[in-house]
């Protein structure tokens, strides 16, 4: 294949936000007539790179060449006139307007008496017809068609401006399999017309189904550009999570293979629990004293599943039994009432309250559970604060310091203490060790292990597979919003095994969950 010159060439792009280097010297090329996927975990810098290209963010250093010429793009309108259109994950159209208006907004056909609606709708129909949507009635409100069709309408809108570059930022996240196929047909059609498509998706299967080329980012850094057919899934995953295959293989589990009697009634038994668009129906048992790890790439549905268990999101299918009794957990208050605690992955926004003191943050959940009309006495507060600050070794040991002044690791300990103070029977920890230093990490892992020994059921979610493997008795593997396997942990289970499961789980090969049980016991 002779390569034409790239339509987009980004060289040495760096963008810094306060405290974070979002992009660090990243290169990116996009050729006409190809589908190029940007891969990386959440926070790897994919969205930042796209926003740098579309002029939403200004770049600190580096250059953007479009059609061989250096361009400085400020804002969406300029990007559009440079031939770059973007379709975002959340459909960015106006549901209060008609389909035709949405396609043509800002490009309405005008005559002597202002907008000529007949001609405008005709043009909209033509644009839609190019994507095989000519049958849509452009005078119907946008809200009357499905999200998948809205997504395609957004693409036809992009094509009205004769875009040469089409950016699709996670367009498939809310589509079902058939709808994804429809979208891919459209994408292939556009590609064959010479449009350069930049695609972002968390779904590996989709990436392999549609893309010609991949660029991998990790932690804001450029990891490499590959032809999709030359990079297998396992290699791709290890590039995304940044662990060498050999290192992954050598990491063994420190966990002893204990025989746990799983025939007793579990503390929590979820059957077919799911929520449209976030988690496919899933079965799950959680036993007292057991640490269950959720493993999977970011966006695989592990947080979403945890949120269903706690009641942060309302499940729309399945049922939950707690100690054998059928229970409805639809709100966090339901969760708390059943002694379920959920520590969020989003420490800063959903976890700690930065301006409140350590003391106030620690007692928050207990107080919420009691109701605000019955404030905790100072003595009760001191008891809780004293107990957990010592137990978790929160430093500095000053309960009246605003929590935002603590290090990330200590903030996480405060958060953990907050939930422990409610005496949970099921503790869900979503990324409790992300972004904290090694020492604090070890202390938190230690605390979690002790909790489990004390009889608490723990769900442990982490992007660090080794950590999951080290701590968990059982590992639930998730991918593409569904549970694809479950491993009973043992001395010879390695992180590599989990990676293999994720990579092996192909498109049609395994629609049903295959339970992998290395010990031969279940």
């Amino acid at each position, binding site marked *: 294949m002779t390569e034409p010159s790239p339509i987009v060439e980004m060289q040495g792009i760096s963008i810094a936000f306060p405290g974070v280097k979002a992009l660090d010297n990243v290169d990116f090329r996009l050729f006409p007539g190809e589908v190029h996927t940007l891969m990386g975990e959440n926070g790897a810098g994919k969205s930042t790179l796209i926003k740098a290209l579309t002029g939403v963010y200004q770049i600190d250093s580096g250059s953007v060449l479009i059609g061989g010429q250096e361009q400085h793009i400020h804002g969406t309108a300029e990007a559009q006139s440079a031939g770059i259109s973007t379709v975002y994950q959340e459909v*960015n159209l106006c*549901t209060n307007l008609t389909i035709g*208006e949405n396609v043509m907004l800002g490009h*309405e056909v005008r005559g002597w008496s202002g907008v000529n609606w007949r001609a405008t709708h005709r043009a909209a129909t033509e644009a839609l017809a190019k994507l*095989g949507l000519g049958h849509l009635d452009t005078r119907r409100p946008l809200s*009357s068609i499905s999200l998948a069709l809205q997504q395609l309408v957004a693409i036809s809108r992009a094509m009205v401006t004769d875009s040469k570059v089409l950016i699709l930022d996670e367009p498939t996240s809310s589509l079902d399999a058939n709808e994804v196929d429809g979208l891919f*047909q459209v994408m292939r059609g556009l590609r064959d017309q010479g449009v350069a498509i930049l695609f972002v998706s968390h779904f590996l299967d989709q990436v392999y189904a549609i893309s010609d080329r991949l660029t991998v980012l990790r932690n804001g850094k450029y990891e490499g550009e590959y032809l999709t057919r030359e990079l297998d899934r396992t290699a791709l995953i290890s590039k995304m999570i940044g662990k060498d295959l050999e290192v992954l293989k050598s990491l063994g589990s420190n966990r002893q293979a204990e025989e746990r009697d799983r025939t007793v009634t579990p503390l929590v038994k979820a059957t077919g629990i799911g929520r449209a668009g976030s988690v496919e129906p899933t079965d799950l048992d959680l036993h007292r004293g057991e640490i269950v790890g959720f493993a999977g790439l970011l966006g695989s549905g592990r947080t979403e599943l945890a949120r269903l268990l706690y009641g942060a999101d309302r499940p729309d299918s399945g049922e939950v039994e707690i100690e054998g009794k059928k229970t409805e957990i639809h709100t966090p208050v339901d969760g708390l009432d059943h002694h379920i605690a959920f520590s969020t992955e989003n420490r800063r926004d959903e976890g700690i309250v930065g301006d409140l003191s350590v003391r106030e943050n620690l007692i928050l959940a207990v107080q919420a559970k009691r109701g605000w009309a019955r404030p905790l006495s100072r003595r009760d507060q001191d008891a809780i604060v004293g107990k957990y600050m010592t137990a978790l070794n929160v430093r500095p040991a000053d309960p009246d310091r605003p929590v935002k002044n603590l290090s990330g690791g200590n903030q996480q300990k405060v958060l953990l203490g907050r939930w422990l103070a409610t005496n949970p029977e099921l503790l869900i920890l979503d990324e409790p060790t992300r972004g904290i230093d090694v020492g604090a990490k070890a202390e938190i892992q230690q605390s979690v292990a002790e909790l489990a020994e004390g009889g608490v059921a723990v769900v442990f979610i982490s992007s660090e597979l080794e950590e999951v493997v080290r701590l968990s008795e059982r590992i639930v593997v998730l991918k593409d919003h569904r549970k694809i396997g479950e491993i009973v942990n043992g001395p010879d289970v390695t992180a590599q095994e989990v990676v293999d499961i994720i990579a092996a789980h192909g498109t049609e090969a395994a629609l049903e969950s295959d339970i992998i049980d290395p010990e031969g016991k279940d």
Partner: protein
Amino acid sequence: MTSTLVTGPSGAGTKSRAARLVDTAARTWRTNLAALPTLAAVVIFIAMIVYGEAAYGRILQYNTISNLLINNAHLVIIAVGMTFVILTGGIDLSVGAVIAFSSVAGLMLANAGWPAWVVIALMIGFGTAFGVASGVLIQFFNVQPFIATLAMMFLARGLASTLSTKPERLSDESPVRSLATKFKVIDGERVNDLVLTPGVLIAVLVIAVGFFVLHRTRTGRTVYAIGGSEPSAALMGLPVVRTKLWVYAISGTLAGLAAVVYTARLGIAQNITGIGWELDAIAAVVIGGTLLTGGAGYVLGAVVGALVLGLMNVLITRDGGIRPEATTIITGGILLVFVLLQRALTARKRE
């Protein structure tokens, strides 16, 4: 939504005829859903006329209609401006106070011997200035529309009071008053004539231009898009900043114009002129079926809303038995019914 999931790009096309008929009916219903509250306003307006005619008589005759139009021309004008603002999801609380300032300042200038056309231009210009100031506060200083226009309201009212706290009178010879000259369009029996003023014609022109801008220009469509979803509009590359500035400038300008029409008719202005008119305008817009959250509604709805309010006053006066104090209670009741109606409709849409 699930019922209309019909068509992937491959097309389903295997529906029975009956199902298709149901689909068509559902579509027609849904397409016109946005217009329904406005339609309801028209129906209520007609019902009020019919009831008034039956109960008190002399409603559907030239002089009553003439008075209704002449007395409410200023309200119609600010209601049109308010429609633009509310369509973007904003609000403009300053219009009443802007009218007070513009009227008092204009009258003082006219009495000081400034030529009429300069005075009129300045009165409108004052309104534009306040509108632009609100828009700048909202767009560039990130102030909530409610707060920004509240600040402008206090400012304008305060400035009006600084100028004068006594009623300012415009001499009857002033050319400004010619805008209120009544001319007979249809000569009826005795005093039953259809009479209009240039003020009414200005209001009609404002309605026509407002309709044209909203439905026939890109700026107008951007107004609707912003009301539907401002972030989406921005991501579609529409000129959101410019359009929002425009919208507040339009509302302010029309407030200035309303001040001209009003003072021309009354020949009197005071710092307390126009108290609560912004709320009347909002009420007119809401009764006319525009969603307060923006994105749906019509200029004509606001006009009907303003006329509903005007007609209600006429009916209450005619009745004689209703205490004037009850007027505001009835206004509130009508407003509530309309908002509840909209609630029900949007809830239905969302499923």
